């Protein structure tokens, strides 16, 4: 059967009333933003993933590719943003192939919102979706419940207020591409420094009309790990060996094969 499986829902809510802690999903905490400029659109994200107060991943990727020129920044439950994005990317590719046209941002958005609406907010995906297509450059956002929004600049995630403060004060309609990148990076940095759910590095993706999309992974790295004061190398033998057993789990056989005997695929 397609879709999510709710078999254990009742059991789990019963268990939680008995005091069993529900497992915590990795959240991307997150600051994500997007901003348009004449002739294109930029999106950006921080790279911290959290599980409660613990940093689960210091350099995760929150910019997902839906199509070569349509990219998506994700906030919320890490697994949901990842899976929903992969699913829509597949369907978008199939759709583009069957229609023999370049995929459009609005198509991606509609597929996302219909999928998310179907799950009534149980998929915790909050996305900023941007790209260029035959109709121009677009910047849109989708919330977990399926509602969507258009805007020339957007922010989502726990650092969205910090980022929005920067966007609201510095956005202009006539931004150049470089200025738009700088604005997005500044907005993400506001999240990195001021929001505990966001941190580490800045990823940026630029989509310009008539050009290939450019992903700048780790565009800024303002949080390099510091050098430790001491060395923590242990002398060999420091850890006690309690038991030792060596097993051959496969037989290794060595044979020499001369080059001209080897089959080489010359087609590829």
């Amino acid at each position: 059967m397609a879709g999510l499986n709710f078999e254990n829902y009742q059991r789990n809510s019963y268990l939680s009333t008995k005091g069993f802690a529900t497992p915590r999903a990795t959240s991307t905490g997150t600051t994500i933003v997007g901003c348009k400029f004449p002739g294109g659109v930029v999106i950006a994200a921080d790279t911290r993933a959290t599980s409660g107060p613990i940093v689960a991943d210091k350099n995760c990727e929150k910019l997902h590719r839906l199509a070569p020129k349509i990219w998506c920044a994700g906030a919320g439950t890490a697994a949901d943003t990842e899976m929903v994005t992969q699913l829509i990317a597949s369907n978008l590719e199939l759709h583009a192939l069957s229609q023999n046209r370049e995929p459009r941002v609005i198509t991606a958005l509609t597929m996302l919102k219909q999928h998310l609406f179907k799950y009534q907010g149980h998929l915790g995906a909050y996305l900023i979706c941007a790209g260029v297509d035959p109709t121009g450059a677009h910047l849109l956002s989708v919330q977990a419940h399926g509602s969507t929004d258009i805007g020339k600049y957007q922010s989502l995630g726990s650092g969205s207020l910090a980022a929005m403060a920067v966007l609201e004060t510095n956005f202009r309609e006539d931004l150049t591409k470089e200025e738009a990148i700088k604005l997005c990076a500044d907005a993400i940095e506001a999240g990195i420094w001021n929001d505990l759910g966001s941190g580490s590095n800045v990823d940026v993706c630029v989509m310009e009309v008539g050009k290939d999309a450019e992903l700048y992974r780790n565009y800024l790295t303002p949080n390099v790990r510091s050098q430790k004061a001491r060395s923590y190398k242990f002398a060999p033998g420091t850890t006690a060996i309690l038991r030792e057993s060596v097993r051959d789990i496969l037989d290794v056989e060595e044979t020499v094969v001369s080059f001209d005997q080897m089959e080489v695929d010359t087609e590829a």
Partner: protein
Amino acid sequence: MQTTVASEYSNEIHSVPIEHRFNPYSDNGGTVLGIAGEDFAVLAGDTRQVEGYSIQSRYEPKIFDVGDNIVMTANGFAADGVALIDKFRQQLKWYKFDNFGGKLEIKSAARYIQHLLYGKRFFPYYVSTLIAGLDEEGKGAVYSYDPVGSYEREQCRAGGAAASLIMPFLDNQVNFKNQFIPGTDGKEKKPLKYLTLEEVIELVRDAFSSATERHIYVGDGLEIKIVTKDGVRTEYYPLKRD
């Protein structure tokens, strides 16, 4: 007042009453750590104070020199921490008035703090408390408490948000837990020894820079108070601010 737990099926909709009353506590994050050496003791804490996902202050010190060569910290709910330390400071002052300026020994201070904490047994100070100083023989001493006053003298202790990250590191590096002498086939433990002040400060800095990497409530700055027979000294090191 009742609310409905979100559910797919009408037959399992059940009501859970929500408690709607004032919560007198909050969690202000931060983490602290104390290590005792042979003739010194240190108390260290980060300087970040938080509320939810926001940083209230990047520099709000929480290690205090309370007098009589004793340093103290109470980490957790910041208002309780301040109240507890203020109360102890005041009592120490009065003790001196009554005792012709005599020094309060750290073990007496330790027992007194137990009573301050237990005095609020049913409305506790929501803090993990640490004090550090020198004992009657001049040896380094660290005492640690739970929120209602159970206490113990220890060689080292981490408290607060990242205690669970730092404590195993301390067990291994200060008390040499799980370390054996190479070549003894795990029969002989690495013998305990006092660490020098330099080694201790390096350990503290590494513990805090690591905790900063992996705990969102830790960061901004590290303040260390060092107690020796010559008095209390403070050192500051910046930490990452993200």
